[in-house]
Each structure stands twice: as structure tokens, then as C-alpha cells.
């Protein structure tokens, strides 16, 4: 091309250009990138630098059942009684009466929580868009059956049955970690949540496909003899991606909260594996214990730190999705 500047710019490039100049999108996107890097790259690096992991217990980090506070140096020692020299810096102090490094647990906990949220969102969006497309495109009886299944999943009281389901499902499958790719318990929880959040994308996709299938370009494709699979793949599917991104980010935020919800019911990720929901639940207590009237200090560092982590990450994800929606659809509002 002699003059690249005049070359047409595609849909995605235009959207990217708009997104890049949106201060809210840049701020929330950067925050997400920072959190991801801190959790997935920073956590193992910091653990290597400090010389202990998120589950290492420091007996000197707890005095009279009170964990040490922010930015404390703790002498290295462990319960086995071996003689160890030197001290360790606990940036956010210790994690309650056990005496583990709160900052490292925060970073490692972010991994588990983000893995659950990402996995559940991916599973939910995949099932939802597949069923939504089928229902919208085929219509008729298929639509009827899928609509019934969708309503069934929407009406299913997951949290009411979480304790029983947790007892039967999660224990049995928590050992699957995809060859150590994810923390124990993450995969089963992600699948479990994904199976229950697919109705939301499914409804969106169904409506969109109903509309797309009547468009002239789909009609033209059908007229020149394209098969059903080809039409779905090359003419319908590309139009679904922009409408799926914003709800996917909200699902990401919602599943982060659900991860905490499950921990509060005592059926989340195993409490020994760090996760944000688990850290929060270990302070607030399980729902079933709340009724006993035990007082909770909400301003305590151990409640504020994981709450802020969830709030910032989920909030940034939802906000980023909203800005993506605006960038993808500038005529819309």
C-alpha cells in the first residue's frame, strides 16, 4: 500500500483506539493487569525472595493469640523446634492466630480466587453461548426445551444446597488440579459455579441470534447455499463476541463474590489453601456461626485486606467491561 494512513480501519481497531483514550478504561485495565501480575508472577518471586511460602507457620508471629501487625520483622523459627536464624519481614503482618504471612497469602489467595472466577466465567460463557445460539437459531421445540432448562438453572437454589453439594461434590473432585496448573479445589469450584451462571449469557445470546438470523447477510448466505454450521460459524458467531465481553466481566466479578459466599458457608476452597474468600470467611466466620452473636471487628486489618482485594479487582473488572462495551458500541450509550 502506498498510503497506509488512508487504509480503512476495522471494527476492532477502532474500538481499541477508543478504549485507549478512555481514562476510566485505562485506569481499571491497568489495575487488573497489576493485580494479575502481582498474583501470578509476583507471588512465587516474593516467596522465593523471602524463603517461605504462604503456608509456612511462624510461631513468633503470634503473641498471646494476637498476630503481629503491619510491617513487622519476625524471628525465623518454627514449631518443630529446629534452630533457625535470621528474621522475616511480614509486610501485612500475620494472618490471625496461625501465624502465616498475610501478604504472601493475599498474593497466593488472589491466584486461587482469580482462577475460580476466570474458569467459571469461561465455562459459563461457553455453555451459555452454545445453548443460546442453538435456541435462537433453531427455534421451535429446541428453543422450548433449552428455555425450560435455562429457567430450571435460574430457579435452582444453589446456595441453599451448597452445603450438601459441597459435601458430596467438592471433596471428591478437589484433587484435580490440571497437573498443578491450578490450586486444589479451584477446578471443582469453577466447574460448579460455571454450571450455574450460564443462563445469563444464554438469554443474551438467544435474543441476539434471533435478531441476527433475520438479517440480510444471513439470508444471502443461506441463499447461496451455505450450510447451517457455516452460517453459525462465520456469520453469526463473530457478532456474538462484542455482546458477550461486558457480561463476561460482570460474571467474573460475581463469581469472585460467589467464591467468598461459598467460603462463608464452609464449602469453598479448602481453608488451608489461601483464597480471598477463605481469608475473609476465616475472619467473619461461617454464616452458621454468625447467628451465635459473636462480635466481629470489621475494621480489623484481616477483614479489610481481603475485602479490599475483592472489591478492587471485581470492581475494576466490572468497570473495565462497561468501558469496553462503550468502546465497542459508540452509537449506543
Amino acid at each position, binding site marked *: 500500500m502506498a498510503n497506509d494512513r488512508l487504509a480503512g480501519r476495522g471494527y476492532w481497531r477502532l474500538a481499541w483506539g477508543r478504549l485507549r483514550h478512555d481514562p476510566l478504561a485505562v485506569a481499571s485495565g491497568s489495575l487488573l493487569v497489576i493485580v494479575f501480575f502481582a498474583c501470578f508472577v509476583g507471588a512465587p518471586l516474593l516467596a522465593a525472595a523471602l524463603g517461605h511460602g504462604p503456608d509456612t507457620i511462624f510461631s513468633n508471629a503470634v503473641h498471646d493469640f494476637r498476630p503481629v501487625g503491619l510491617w513487622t520483622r519476625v524471628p525465623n523459627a518454627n514449631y518443630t523446634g529446629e534452630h533457625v536464624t535470621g528474621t522475616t519481614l511480614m509486610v501485612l503482618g500475620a494472618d490471625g492466630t496461625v501465624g502465616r504471612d498475610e501478604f504472601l497469602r493475599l498474593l497466593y489467595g488472589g491466584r486461587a480466587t482469580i482462577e475460580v472466577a476466570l474458569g467459571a466465567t469461561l465455562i459459563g460463557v461457553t455453555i451459555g453461548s452454545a445453548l443460546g445460539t442453538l435456541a435462537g437459531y433453531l427455534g421451535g421445540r429446541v428453543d422450548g426445551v433449552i428455555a425450560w432448562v435455562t429457567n430450571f438453572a435460574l430457579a435452582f437454589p444453589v446456595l441453599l444446597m451448597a452445603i450438601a453439594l459441597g459435601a458430596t461434590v467438592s471433596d471428591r473432585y478437589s484433587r484435580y488440579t490440571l497437573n498443578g496448573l491450578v490450586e486444589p479445589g479451584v477446578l471443582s469450584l469453577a466447574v460448579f459455579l460455571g454450571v450455574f451462571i450460564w443462563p445469563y449469557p444464554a*438469554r443474551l445470546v438467544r435474543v441476539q441470534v434471533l435478531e441476527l438470523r433475520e438479517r440480510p447477510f444471513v439470508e444471502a448466505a443461506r441463499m447461496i447455499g451455505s450450510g447451517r454450521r457455516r452460517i453459525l460459524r462465520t456469520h453469526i458467531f463473530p457478532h456474538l463476541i462484542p455482546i458477550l465481553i461486558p457480561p463476561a466481566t460482570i460474571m467474573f466479578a460475581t463469581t469472585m463474590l460467589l467464591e467468598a459466599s461459598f467460603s462463608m458457608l464452609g464449602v469453598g476452597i479448602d481453608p488451608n489453601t489461601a483464597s480471598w474468600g477463605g481469608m475473609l470467611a476465616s475472619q467473619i466466620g461461617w454464616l452458621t456461626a454468625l447467628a451465635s452473636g459473636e462480635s466481629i471487628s470489621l475494621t480489623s486489618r484481616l477483614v479489610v485486606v481481603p475485602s479490599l482485594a475483592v472489591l478492587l479487582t471485581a470492581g475494576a473488572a466490572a468497570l473495565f467491561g462497561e468501558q469496553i462495551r462503550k468502546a465497542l458500541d459508540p452509537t449506543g450509550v
Partner: protein
Amino acid sequence: MAGYIVRRILTGLLMIFALTLITYLVFATVPADPGIYLTGLRTTPAQLKAADHALGVDRPIYIQYLHFVQGMLQGNLGTSYASGTPVSSIIRAALPVTASIVIGGAVLLVVTALLIGVGSALRPHTLFDRTLNALIMCGVALHPLVVGLILQSVFVYTIPLAPTSGYCPLTGQGSCGAHAWAAHLALPWITFMLFLLPLYARVIRTQVLGLLTEPHVVAARAKGASEARVLRVHVLPLLIPTLATMLAIDVSTSLMAAIYIEAAFALPGIGTQALQAQVGFVGLDLPVIVGVVTVVATAVIISNVVADIIAAKADPRIVVARRTFS
């Protein structure tokens, strides 16, 4: 229309059977010994066996389920293993609490979402609109339990504006009554409102922005209608179908959120009942859980049918009967 309603009720009944069946199947796989509810923890195997027989849990699970269905068809949900009281009376005591939280919260939600959504749609792309939008989106990340506990610690303990937790029936005698009822539920309502506000405010804003450019609004303005009249007569009524559909879809989510709100404010609603039925040292109080599942499913089905009828009445372009099962 009538045929549609009948079909919806029939598929709804099918759904209740499917949900309760799954509940039975799930709980059948949980190792539990409900007989201990009767005998206490210090017991002999023979006593335990007799207690299991008295409760009927020694029969195969499908017999138990068929027994439950038989009872349900006669309007009987069985009796609790733990207390021996009929499940229907447990639910009759707990349902008003949860209904108060959810319905009151939904009213507050709709009012607030309309104020924020319409307010920001009337001044699109201003600093006010963008700030509100960003704040609201972050609200998606607030867990109802945490919000509830924070509200409680601020407005009950630090600045004592609200009464301490608990429930006061609307039609109660003595110190309870409409005023005390509302005072006790104010914070739960706010918690509920904040939980769903982000999505509702955003949808209303988008809809109003779209409606304001519609030909009939332009025509009304051209004929000299004031902005207030345009809003009241030509825009707001058109939000009814959307709001009705959204509220119906969120009934299930709301009842789940109610578990956390009830826990935060110590309200004896159906969420609390379902939780208590699952945390005994001895096992699971299956009849209570199935009863709650049935109530939740019924609420979801009824609200969806009502929402469809409201949507069809409010917008004649929506033809109810042509929709499929959903």
C-alpha cells in the same frame, strides 16, 4: 393468554418436581444419620435403627421421594426431623420475614434505580453521569454480607439510628407494628438495594437514553409537552416491561442474597431455616430443605408468569402466547 398461563403453570409444576427430585438425590448421597435427631448422640445401634424407622429414612430414597410427592399433592410438606413440627408451619413463620426483606428491598431498589438511572440519562456524558456510572459499576463487587455487617456496625453500634437486629412482624401487637417493622428492616432493605442497584440503574439509564430519541418523544416535545410530562407519560411507562422481566429473573438471586442479609441482621427467614437445617451435628433436616426449595421454585415460577402478563399488558407489541415455554 389463558392457554399460555395454563401451559406455564404445567411446566412450572414439572420444574418443582424436577427440583425437589434433585434435592432428594443430592441429599441421598450425603452421609447422614437423621435418627440421631430423635435419640441424641448417646445411643445404641438398635435405638438408632428404631428412630430411623420412625422417621422413615430407612426406606429407599425413591420411596421417600414418592411419599413426599404424595404429601405435597395433598398440601402437606412433611415434618421436620429435628423438631417434629410440620414444615408448612415452619415456612409459614419464616416466609413473611423473607418476603418483607425481598419485596420491601425491591421497592426501594426500583425507586433508587429510577432516580439514578433517569437522573444520569437526562444529563448524559456529564461529569455527574460518568462519576455515578463508575461508582455504580464498582458496586457489583460488594458482597451483601459484608455490606450488611458494615451498615449494622455503623448505624446500629456507632451511630445508633436503627434498632438492633431482629424482626418485628408488621401486624404484631405491643411494641411491634408497621413503624417498628420498617425500622427493623431499613438496613436489610438498603443492603438488598445496593446488591442489585448497579445492574438496574445501568439498564434504566440505557433504556431512557434510547427512548428519549424515539419519534413519539420528539413528537410530544414538538407539540409543546413539558420535559416532566414527556418523562411521565411517554418514557417511564415504557420501562415497565423491562423492569418486570428483570425483577422476575432476579427472584432466585434475591432469595439467595436474602440468606446473607438474614445472617447479617439475625432475621429468622427461610434462608436462616435452610441453613439451620444443614448445620446440625447429626446431619441434614431434609424435609425443611426440600420445603424451602419448593417455596423458592414456586416464587420463581409465579413471578415469571406475573411478569410476562404485566409486560404484555404494558406493551401491546409483546404477544405473550407466541413465546415458547420460557
